[in-house]
């Protein structure tokens, strides 16, 4: 049984086809990258997977359970965690409380949640800002915090939307190390990123989207050398120029 099974998912906004019949199976324990030029539909796809947008057509199965029309909180409870491209943290709550909220919402008892939260803070080098309001943290720290919230209860799959964007290299390394460690323990990841070196370094398998459709799916190096993929990026750049 695959971890996440996406089958012919489509979504249009007015006349624009944001996601066009995407089908892909993500196996348990895979670490997959998702690349594509701006506007290719990556974030929309993630929104559909996490329940923030209903698809027009298609199904999404989380370990054989259909989730395409469930609410985000339900999907989170079932084990799909997601990071946002524009960091979303609870700004007037402390970093610790941010993590506690995530843990308690997913069923942890207070003591358990506290222990996990403290451990995550240590692992993500956020121990110093434990009691500071999230709104007072730097952009990179907020991203790390949101990242940490996804792991209060080990999810079946973690969807990360541009986790490395505009992040200090040291924090990037912290996150990458965390991802590698968890991956070695069997955690499934889908990482949307423009950071090609990071994708090459972390992800054995990569997907590429363009204009809503999935145009490549395979070993990372092969995908990055795929002429169709290169065309998608170059073509987009030409239009912008």
């Amino acid at each position, binding site marked *: 049984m695959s971890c996440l099974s996406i089958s012919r998912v489509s979504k249009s906004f007015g006349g624009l086809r944001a996601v066009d019949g995407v089908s892909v199976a993500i196996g348990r324990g895979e670490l997959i990258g998702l690349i594509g030029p701006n506007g290719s539909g990556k974030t929309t796809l993630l929104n559909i997977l*996490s*329940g*923030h947008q209903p698809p027009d057509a298609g199904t999404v199965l989380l370990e054989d359970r259909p989730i395409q029309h469930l*609410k*985000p*909180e339900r999907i*989170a*409870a079932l084990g799909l*965690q*997601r990071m*946002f491209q524009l960091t*979303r*943290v*609870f*700004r*007037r*709550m*402390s970093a*610790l*409380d941010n993590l*506690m*909220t*995530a843990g*308690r*919402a*997913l069923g942890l008892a*207070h003591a358990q949640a506290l222990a996990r939260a403290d451990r995550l803070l240590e692992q993500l080098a956020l121990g110093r800002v*434990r*009691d500071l309001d999230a709104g007072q943290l730097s952009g990179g720290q907020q991203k790390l915090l*949101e990242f940490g*919230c996804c792991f209060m209860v080990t999810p079946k799959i973690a969807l990360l939307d541009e986790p490395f964007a505009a992040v200090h290299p040291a924090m990037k390394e912290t996150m990458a190390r965390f991802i590698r460690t968890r991956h070695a323990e069997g955690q499934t990841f889908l990482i949307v990123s423009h950071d090609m070196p990071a994708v090459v370094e972390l992800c054995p398998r990569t997907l590429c989207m363009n204009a809503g459709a999935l145009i490549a799916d395979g070993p990372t190096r092969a995908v990055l050398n795929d002429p169709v993929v290169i065309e998608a990026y170059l073509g987009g750049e030409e239009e912008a120029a």
Partner: protein
Amino acid sequence: MQGSARRMAVEFRLSLALIALIALAPIVVDNAYWQGVLIVSMYFALLAAGWNLLAGYTGQFSMAPACFAMIGAYTTGLLAYHWSIPPSLGIPASILAAGAIGAALGLIVMRLRGPYLALTTLSFAEIMRLVIGNSYGFTRGDLGLNVPGLFESRLAYYYVFVAVLAAAQAGLYLLLRSRAGLFLRAIRDDEVAAASRGVDVVFWKTAAFTLSTAVSGLAGALYAHFSQLVSPELGLVSQTGLVICMAVIGGIGGLIGPIAGALLVYVSSEMLREAGGIQLIVFALLVILIARFFREGLWGLARRALQGSDAA
């Protein structure tokens, strides 16, 4: 103990101390009129605390607290007036009625934010007030409804209010200290993120709404049996405005602000009444100044001053 939990515990203890002061006040204040003033302050304190739960903690700015107090008052009043139902049943009925209607309203306004929520709750409040006011046959409309009292002595009412206020405050503290407190604040800060983290947004928003309106209903019912006359004026939007003023002046989003604000506003407004009715002007001005320059209200200022002196 984490920072915010400690802060909440301190505020709770302070609020209990304040309530204790109120409880002891009759020793000094033996004048029935001023005891009545304090009783009405406690009525407003309950409304302000309930509204603060909705607005300060969940971010839902409702314009209907006075309306639900009116619903509570009329529930127990009408039950007594038409069917001679005793307050021991009437008051719980008020809580249930206000809570149930509140839950329904809460579900309806679930998706609304900011001015939309304010406008919808305001419309609801006005509709209810007009309906009650116009139903002369049933409610005696603007003439007012006579409600039986509970006790002979004013002091007995006084201590009932003190007890209810203390209980409500304790209940609020326990709720906010639990995971509910985390969820409500998360919803206030970012509903989308809260849902992504697994918080059942619909449930908790409705729960906060229901609890807030139930407390308002209880306050209204108690007030009805105290003043023994209720009229639709209880539910005027300006009464809600008063409650909001009290909460903002005291400081929303904390545990002690609403009570302190209600006491301060109502007691001084009574004192100012003798000086010639400028109380609302002064307090409206205060609200504007505080909202404009000191979001955390007087309590926030006090706390900052204390922390400043600690650090020194």
